[in-house]
C-alpha cells in the first residue's frame, strides 16, 4: 500500500453533544478535543468514567457522528470518507460486540470476508490468529461461552484480521484479572514493536504508563494535559502527593507550608490536606506533628510517588478512582 505520510489521527476542536431525549438533558460528552497521533505511535486516552473516551473513539471509528470540529483518520474525514476509513482501521469496542450468531472462529472468518478476503484465506488467517492468541480451543465456542478475557482477545484477533493501519482499543483490559491483563499488555507491546499504530483508552494509570508513547488526560470531555508520560510527570506539578486526613479541621499553620522551597502546592479541604512536593522527605511526619500540636488526630495518610495519578490529582484536584 502506498500511504501518504502524515498523521494516523488528527482532530481539531472535535465535539459531541448527545441530544436531549425525554427527561434527560443534552449531554456535552466531548467538548473540543485536539489530537495528533503520528503513524507508529502508541497513544493513550486516559480518563475516569464518563470522561468522553468512548465517545471520542466512536467518532474516530465513524460510529458516532461529531456535532462540531473535525476529525481525520489516515488523512480521511470521519464523516465524508467513513467507508474508506473503516477499510483501514481495526476496532476493539469496550463491550463484547462479537456476533452472537456465529462461533468464535466464524466471527473472525466473516470479519476477514467483510474486508475482502476469500473464504479460504479468511479461514486460514483466523486459525493463525487464534493460535497466536492461545484461543484455538475456543474456536468452536459461542461468544457467550467464553470468559471476558477470552472475549477481549477474540475481539483483538477480529480487529487484526485485515491488518488495519490504525488499531483502536477502548478499555481493552477493563475487568480483567491481573494475569490476563499482563498477557494482553504483552500482546499489545508485540504489536507496537511490529509498527502497529495503536490508540487505546484506559482508566488505569499504570496501563497508560506501561504502554503508551504519549498520553492525553481527559476529563469532562476536555483534554487536561497531553505529552509523553515523562513530560506529564515533570510538567503538571509532577510531585509526590502527600495526603493526610485529620479527625477535625486541619491546623491553620499548614497553609504556610506552601511557601517553602520543594513544596509546589498545598490544598486544604476541611480535615483533608494535600501537599504537592518535589522534595517530599519528612513532610508526612511534619503534618502529623502539626496535627498533634493543634490537638487533632490523623485518621488516614498516604504518599503517592510522581505518576500519572499524581498528575491527574494536581490537574483536577480530584482523586482518580475507577
Amino acid at each position: 500500500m502506498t500511504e501518504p505520510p502524515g498523521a494516523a489521527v488528527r482532530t481539531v476542536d472535535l465535539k459531541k453533544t448527545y441530544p436531549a431525549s425525554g427527561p434527560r438533558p443534552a449531554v456535552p460528552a466531548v467538548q473540543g478535543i485536539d489530537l495528533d497521533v503520528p503513524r507508529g505511535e502508541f497513544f493513550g486516552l486516559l480518563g475516569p468514567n464518563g470522561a468522553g473516551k468512548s465517545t471520542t473513539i466512536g467518532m474516530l471509528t465513524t460510529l458516532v457522528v461529531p456535532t462540531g470540529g473535525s476529525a481525520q483518520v489516515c488523512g480521511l474525514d470521519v464523516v465524508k470518507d467513513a467507508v474508506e476509513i473503516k477499510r483501514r482501521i481495526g476496532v476493539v469496542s469496550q463491550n463484547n460486540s462479537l456476533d452472537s450468531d456465529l462461533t468464535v472462529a466464524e466471527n473472525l472468518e466473516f470479519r476477514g470476508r467483510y474486508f475482502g478476503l476469500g473464504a479460504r484465506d479468511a479461514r486460514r488467517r483466523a486459525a493463525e490468529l487464534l493460535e497466536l492468541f492461545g484461543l484455538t480451543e475456543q474456536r468452536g465456542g459461542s461468544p457467550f461461552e467464553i470468559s471476558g478475557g477470552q472475549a477481549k482477545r477474540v475481539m483483538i484477533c477480529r480487529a487484526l484480521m485485515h491488518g488495519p493501519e490504525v488499531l483502536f482499543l477502548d478499555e481493552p483490559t477493563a475487568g480483567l484479572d491481573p494475569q490476563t491483563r499482563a498477557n494482553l499488555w504483552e500482546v499489545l507491546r508485540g504489536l507496537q514493536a511490529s509498527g502497529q499504530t495503536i490508540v487505546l483508552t484506559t482508566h488505569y494509570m499504570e496501563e497508560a504508563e506501561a504502554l503508551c508513547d504519549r498520553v492525553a488526560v481527559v476529563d469532562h470531555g476536555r483534554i487536561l494535559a497531553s505529552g509523553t508520560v515523562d513530560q506529564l510527570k515533570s510538567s503538571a506539578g509532577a510531585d509526590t502527593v502527600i495526603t493526610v486526613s485529620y479527625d477535625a479541621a486541619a491546623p491553620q499553620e499548614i497553609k504556610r507550608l506552601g511557601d517553602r522551597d520543594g513544596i509546589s502546592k498545598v490544598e486544604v479541604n476541611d480535615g483533608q490536606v494535600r501537599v504537592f512536593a518535589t522534595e517530599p522527605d519528612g513532610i508526612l511526619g511534619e503534618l502529623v506533628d502539626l496535627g498533634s500540636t493543634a490537638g487533632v488526630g490523623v485518621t488516614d495518610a498516604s504518599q503517592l510517588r510522581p505518576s500519572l495519578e499524581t498528575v491527574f490529582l494536581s490537574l483536577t484536584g480530584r482523586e482518580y478512582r475507577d
Partner: protein
Amino acid sequence: MSTAVLAPPPPARATIPRTFAAMMAREARVMRKNFLSTFIRVLVQPVMFVFVFAYVLPKLGGGATAGGPGGPTFSTILVPGLVGSSIIMQAMMAVIFPLMMELTWQKSITDRALAPVPVPLLAVQKIIAAATQGLIGGLLVFPAVLLIHAEGQAPKVHVDDWPILILVMVAGALMSAAGGLLLGTLLNPQKVQVMFAMVLLPMTMLGCVYYPWSALDHIRWLQILSLLNPLVYISEGLRSALTPAIPHMPAWAFLLAIVGGTILLTWAATRTFTKRVLT
C-alpha cells in the same frame, strides 16, 4: 500468547459488492444453523390451521365450506392467505428478533457497522436477508396447504400468472422485511412482546387470510379499515395469481400497494436504522 510472528494478511480488495456478498454469506450460514427451529416455528400455525379447517371440520360435517355447496372449498381460500401470512410473519420475525439483540445486547450491531459499507446499505442487506427467509417460509407452507385436506376438500389452485405470483411473493417479502426493520428500530425491546400481540396478531387475523377481501362487502367499515393492512394486498395478490376463480382485488391495486409500500418502508426503515446505529 505472542504476536512476534503475526504476518500481514493476504492481499484483499474490500469492494462494496464483495462486502455485501460476504454479509449475505453470513446470513446464509446463520440461517442454515437455525433452519429447523426457525421454520418449524412458521410451519406449525398454518399446518394446524389447514388440519382443523380443511380436514377435521369437513370430516365432522361442519359448515366449514366457504361458499356453501358448489362454491369454493375453504381450503382454496386458505392457500393464498396462509402463504401470504407465512411470508409476512417469517420476514418480520427474521429481521426483528436478531435486531433486538444487536441493538441492545452490547450493541453487537457494531460488528457489522464496522464493515466497509455505508450504514444504510447494511439496512438494505438486512431487508434482503429477511425477505429471503420470508420467501422460504412462504414456499414451505405450499405443500402443507395443498396436501392436507379431507376427501373432496382439495383446494383448486392454478397458477394463472407466473410473473404476478413471483412479483407478489418477492415484493411482499421485501415489504414485510422493511416493515419489520422499521418497527424493530422504532420500538424498544421491552415493547416487542406488546407489538406481537397488538400488531402482528390482528394483522394476520384481519389480513384477508381466511376470507377474500370482496367478501367484506357486508362489513363495509372493516373492508375499508383492512386497506391499512399490508397483508391484505399480499393475500389478494396471491389470490389473483393462484386461485383466480375466487373474487380478488384488481392487479393495479395490490401491485401499487405492495411495490409502493416496499419503496416507502425501505426508505423509512433505512433512515431509522441508520439513526439507531450511528449515534
